[in-house]
């Protein structure tokens, strides 16, 4: 299955992936309208320390702890993509605690949010990948 992978070697720490993610999942068709004056809550985060940077988002594990731990059945694997059904999410945050990568976060809407490979927004393909200026984030079969 194609997944989002990150090449630390090429990550510039520019953080554009975070903005592209936030924009893609905003449901708004203009980036300025979507993001201006807002603190963004993207599903991908650039981790940085000294001269090392890399972006982290859901790994879509084959045996995901988050799905195992979900008490309400809100998290499930659909065609390999770990998806969230926000109607079922009760906001217990078990998944947030159990994800070893820290890739599930809380959202203003109450339910948790996570990368769903842009399958649920208008773009259909991961926008962090599409907008990465240096091929540091790729969407591929490995």
């Amino acid at each position: 299955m194609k997944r989002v992978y990150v090449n630390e070697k090429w990550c510039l720490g520019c953080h554009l992936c975070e903005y592209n993610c936030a924009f893609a999942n905003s449901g708004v068709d203009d980036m300025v309208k979507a993001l201006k004056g807002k603190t963004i809550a993207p599903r991908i985060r650039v981790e940085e320390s000294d001269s090392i940077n890399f972006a982290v988002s859901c790994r879509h594990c084959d045996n995901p702890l988050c799905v195992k731990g979900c008490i309400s059945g809100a998290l499930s694997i659909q065609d390999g993509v770990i998806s969230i059904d926000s109607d079922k999410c009760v906001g217990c945050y078990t998944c947030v605690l159990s994800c070893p990568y820290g890739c599930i976060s809380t959202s203003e809407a109450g339910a948790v949010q996570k990368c769903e490979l842009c399958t649920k927004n208008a773009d259909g393909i991961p926008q962090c990948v599409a907008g990465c200026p240096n091929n540091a984030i790729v969407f591929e079969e490995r």
Partner: protein
Amino acid sequence: MAIEYLYPQFEVLRNPDRCIACRVCERQCANEVHHFDTDLQKMVSDESKCVNCHRCVSLCPTRALKITKTNHQFRENANWTGEVIEEIYRQANSGGTLLSSMGNPKNYPIYWDKMLINASQVTNPSIDPLREPMEIRTFLGKKPTTIERDENGKIIPNLSPRLELDIPVMFSAMSYGSISYNAHESLARASKAMGTYYNTGEGGLHEDFYKWGDNTIVQVASGRFGVEKDYLDAGAAIEIKIGQGAKPGIGGHLPGTKVASDISRTRMIPEGTDAISPAPHHDIYSIEDLRQLVYSLKEATAYKKPVIVKISAVHNVAAIASGIARSGADIIAIDGYRGGTGAAPTRIRDNVGIPIALALASVDQRLREEGIRDNVSIVVGGSIRNSADIIKAIALGADAVYIATAALLSLGCHLCRTCQNGKCNWGIATQRPELVKRLNPDIGSERLINLLTAWGHEIREMMGGMGINSIEALRGNRLMLRGIGLNEKELEILGIKHAGE
């Protein structure tokens, strides 16, 4: 000096309605122009640091930025222009030689733009490159002078060592040091993919790049950096660099700060020392000395590799080329005054040398008059900007062209002409690891391949229009060119007629 004489050249225009304060501009500017002001809660910029490289503009996701020339000006003066005045201020401040980079930007004539290309109408057919073979394969090297046959009368292919190019475009010399590891890797990979060559410049060959040796021209310049037996053996050809178009008559200087461990190893000099290339080769003070170096290199490589001699286009270029054609060299590379550089004294860059089109025309004609044109191939560089320039160069008599500035542009260079600062935001003319990594060779090589592929299509299209389906039938075919707006003397030197004639 308390008085600041220089006003910033550029203005950073930020559209506040569009800026989402994502800070990508701040993170990507090595010159530290942008920062987020926490008090004002917005992005601000210090335009005095801006070099107009467009890295921030290109990465801004909301197109909130643009850079313009400042409209701040001196009292108008056609003679003492703002640029002239500012240069005097700078020198009065520093006491130093003015430095700049890339090619001569002055308003001299561009001869490529004063020549027009022919097309077939009625009396012979144009050829459709989509339907018919359109051949642009090119060989560089000496032509044989005698036909030898075996006892059965079969021709013995007694060709001297040569380069075979699938497209008559090569990447010209740029050293590892003047450009980055990733830039070199991009050039090497693109050369392999396109069946052409890149050139190490005077920076030696990084150990990682020996694997691309078959597509590498190794340079031997006056500093002899990185030159040793394995290096000479690694390349497909050896280039003796006498001069370069951007700075004819002077040497080079890579400051010690740029000679970090990798570069010092590749150049084979101690870390942190200045890499100084002398102005002349100190073993070449005359043409017969050149012959000795040519043959020393051939001897060292068992006569298996063609030797290129690269000179800059200077006033007496035809006579010099004639001497080189008799020196044993297989290829002459001529670099015009628009040729780029990582750093050159401004006055030299802007005032020394001659246009490549004129140099090429006179060299080709001279070598033909002397009957020695087949002794050598001619490669020209120094601002080949597009496929039409290539067609014109070949019609004037070139065998192939060298490109460098165009290659860098395709890698992202925006010609801000501040390579000498070593803070290239595009990861090209820099050795700072965090900047070098900005140029991913996967992307870089693909863009170079795209550029050459596109030019290849255009070259074939123009050839077909002229009714030519083989590049050798275009070479030196000056009837395919007409001058526009040129005077008698220029036409005479170019060996072409005026449009309408």
